[in-house]
C-alpha cells in the first residue's frame, strides 16, 4: 500500500522475528500490552537500564521508570494506545527512557542521549499495545556539542577581528582627516604663499590621502556590516533620480576614457522605501567598478520596477569573468587578477560590501558575466524596506549535564 507500513501489525511470528532482530541491532526495543506492562525487552535495552531497573519484563513501564509518569513520555505512550505515532528527536527531548550511556561514551552525559519512536501495535485489527524503539545518539550529541563549542569560539574570534578592523580603521582615519585639513590650509595660502610646483605636490598628497580615506571607509563599512552594527535609516527615495545623480559623477571619467555612459530610466520616478545613503554607496561601487574595468565600449545604467522591487542594472562591455571568477567576486579581499590591484587600485572590498549592504536592505546584488563580452550587475531592492532577517548568533554552549 505504501512506502511506509501504516501500523505495525503484531502476531506471534512477527513479534518473535522482531525480538530476534532486536538482539543483534544496536537499538533498544520494548513492547508493552494495553496496560503498559512490559511484554518484551531486548538484551541491549535491559543492559542499558542497568541493575537499578531489574526484571523489566512483566512490570508496568511507569513503575519501572516512575520518572515517566505524568510527563510527555506517558502522554506519548497513551497516545500510541489511541492510535498516534510519536517521534522524539534528541534535539528537543534528550532522552525517552533514563538509560545509562555506553561505558565508552563521552563523560559529559550522565544519561544516554536518544531518539525514540513510540508506535501503536495492532493485533487482529485493534490496538494491542505499544512498541518503543530507542536509538543511542550519545556519541553524535557529544560530537555536535564539540562542533558547536568550536563554532562559538570561531565566532568570538571573528567578532574580535571585526572589532580590531573597526578600531584600527578609526585610528587611521582620524590623523588622515588632520592631514587633509592642513593640506587645505597650506593650499589656501592663508599661512603664506605657495609656489606652483609646491601646489602641484600638495594636490598629489591630498589625492593620495583622500584615496586612503576611501579605502579605510570601505574597511569600516565592511566590518560594521559583518558585526551587524550598520544602522539602516530608510525613507522614500526616487531610485531613478538617485541612479541619474550617481551616473553623472562618472561622466568626466567616461569622457576621458572615451566610453559611452548611458542611462535607461523610467519616465516617472521609481519610488522605494530604503536607505538612500546605502543605495548610493552600492551604486557608486558597482558603476565605479564597471568604469574601472571597461576600456572600450559602454557602461549602461538601467532602472526598472515591478510590483515588488526596483531593479538597478549596470551593464558593461568590459573583459567579463569566467564562471569560477563569478563565484569569487563577492568574497572579501578578493580581486580576481592580483595584478589589477596594482593597476586599478582598490581593496577588493567594494563588491562584497555592496552585496552585504543590498542584503541589509532586504534585497540582493547578483552578477552575470561572459568572458570577452562583459558583465551585468543586478541590484534588486524591495519597494518596502524588509531588512534581511538575521539568525541570532549561536547560543552559548548548553550546560553539559542532562
Amino acid at each position, binding site marked *: 500500500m505504501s512506502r511506509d507500513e501504516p501500523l505495525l501489525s503484531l502476531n506471534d511470528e512477527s513479534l518473535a522475528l522482531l525480538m530476534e532482530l532486536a538482539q543483534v541491532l544496536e537499538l533498544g526495543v520494548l513492547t508493552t500490552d494495553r496496560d503498559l506492562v512490559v511484554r518484551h525487552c531486548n538484551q541491549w535495552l535491559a543492559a542499558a537500564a542497568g541493575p537499578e531497573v531489574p526484571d523489566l519484563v512483566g512490570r508496568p513501564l511507569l513503575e519501572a521508570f516512575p520518572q515517566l509518569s505524568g510527563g510527555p513520555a506517558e502522554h506519548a505512550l497513551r497516545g500510541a494506545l489511541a492510535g498516534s505515532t510519536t517521534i522524539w528527536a534528541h534535539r528537543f527531548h534528550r532522552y525517552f527512557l533514563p538509560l545509562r550511556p555506553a561505558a565508552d561514551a563521552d563523560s559529559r552525559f550522565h544519561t544516554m542521549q536518544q531518539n525514540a519512536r513510540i508506535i501503536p501495535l495492532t493485533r487482529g485489527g485493534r490496538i494491542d499495545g505499544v512498541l518503543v524503539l530507542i536509538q543511542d545518539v550519545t556519541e*553524535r550529541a557529544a560530537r555536535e556539542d564539540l562542533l558547536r563549542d568550536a563554532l562559538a569560539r570561531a565566532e568570538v574570534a571573528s567578532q574580535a577581528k571585526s572589532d580590531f578592523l573597526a578600531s584600527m580603521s578609526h585610528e587611521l582615519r582620524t590623523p588622515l582627516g588632520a592631514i587633509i585639513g592642513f593640506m587645505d590650509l597650506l593650499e589656501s595660502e592663508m599661512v603664506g604663499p605657495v609656489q606652483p610646483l609646491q601646489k602641484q605636490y600638495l594636490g598629489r598628497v591630498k589625492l593620495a590621502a583622500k584615496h586612503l580615506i576611501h579605502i579605510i571607509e570601505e574597511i569600516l563599512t565592511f566590518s560594521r556590516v559583518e558585526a551587524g552594527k550598520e544602522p539602516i535609516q530608510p525613507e522614500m527615495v526616487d531610485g531613478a533620480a538617485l541612479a541619474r545623480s550617481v551616473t553623472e559623477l562618472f561622466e568626466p571619467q567616461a569622457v576621458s576614457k572615451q566610453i559611452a555612459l548611458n542611462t535607461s530610466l523610467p519616465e516617472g520616478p521609481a519610488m522605494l522605501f530604503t536607505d538612500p545613503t546605502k543605495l548610493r554607496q552600492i551604486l557608486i561601487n558597482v558603476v565605479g567598478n564597471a568604469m574601472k574595468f571597461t576600456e572600450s565600449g559602454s557602461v549602461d545604467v538601467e532602472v526598472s520596477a515591478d510590483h515588488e522591487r526596483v531593479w538597478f542594472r549596470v551593464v558593461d562591455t568590459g573583459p567579463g569573468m569566467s564562471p569560477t571568477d563569478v563565484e569569487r567576486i563577492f568574497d572579501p579581499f578578493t580581486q580576481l587578477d592580483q595584478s589589477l590591484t596594482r593597476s586599478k587600485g582598490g581593496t577588493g572590498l567594494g563588491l562584497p560590501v555592496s552585496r552585504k549592504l543590498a542584503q541589509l536592505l532586504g534585497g540582493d546584488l547578483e552578477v552575470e558575466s561572459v568572458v570577452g563580452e562583459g558583465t551585468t550587475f543586478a541590484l534588486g531592492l524591495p519597494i518596502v524596506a524588509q531588512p534581511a532577517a538575521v539568525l541570532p548568533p549561536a*547560543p552559548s554552549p548548553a550546560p553539559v549535564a542532562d
Partner: protein
Amino acid sequence: MSTHLVDHDALTELFNIGLHRAAASLSELTGQRIIVELPRLWVCPIEDTQERLRELLEGELATVHQIFMGNMTGDAVLVLEYESASRLAALLTRGDVAMDGRLDQSAREVLTEVGNVILSSCLSAFGDMLRVSVTFAVPRIHVESLDGLLRSLKVKDDEMHYTLLAATRFQLTEGEVGGYLMIAVGLTSLELITKALAAREG
C-alpha cells in the same frame, strides 16, 4: 465528485483547530511562542495539485509524510522548500541545528518530529471533529523533487484522488517560514469528510 461540494469555510476551521493544537505543542516543545497560520486552502483533484504546486514551489523539497488509516485513509505531507526547512529547523532549535543551511541528520530528526506534531494534530482534529477514527504510521522525512513528491503520494489505487492543500506560515520570535500541508485522500474519504462537515454544520 465536484470539489465545490466541500464546505471550504468549515474545512478551513478544521485545519485551523489542528494547526492551533500543533502550535501549542510546538511552543511547549521548543519553549518559544509559535503561531501557525493558514493563509490559504485549496481542494482539488490530485492532477491539478501538480500544476498548482509547480507555481508555488521550486527546487528541492523537504517533505515529512505520514500515512493514516481508518475511516479516512490517505497520505498527509508537510512540504517545505529545502531552504525553508533548514531555516525552520534552525529557528525551532534557536540555531542549534542547520545553521549552515544544510539538513544534516539532526535537522532531519527535528523536522520529522515537527512534521509528526503538525500532521497528527491536524489529522486528530479531523478525527475528533468529524467523529472518524484515524491511526497513523511512522512519519518519514524525504528530500525530493516535486515530481518525486507527487509520485510518492499514497492513497487507494482504485479510486479518484483529491488533495486538501493548505498554505501554512510558521511565526516564531526570530522570523517566519512558509510551507504547505497536503492531505491526499481517495474519493471515499473526501465524501466522508464532505458529509461529516455537512452534518456538523446542520
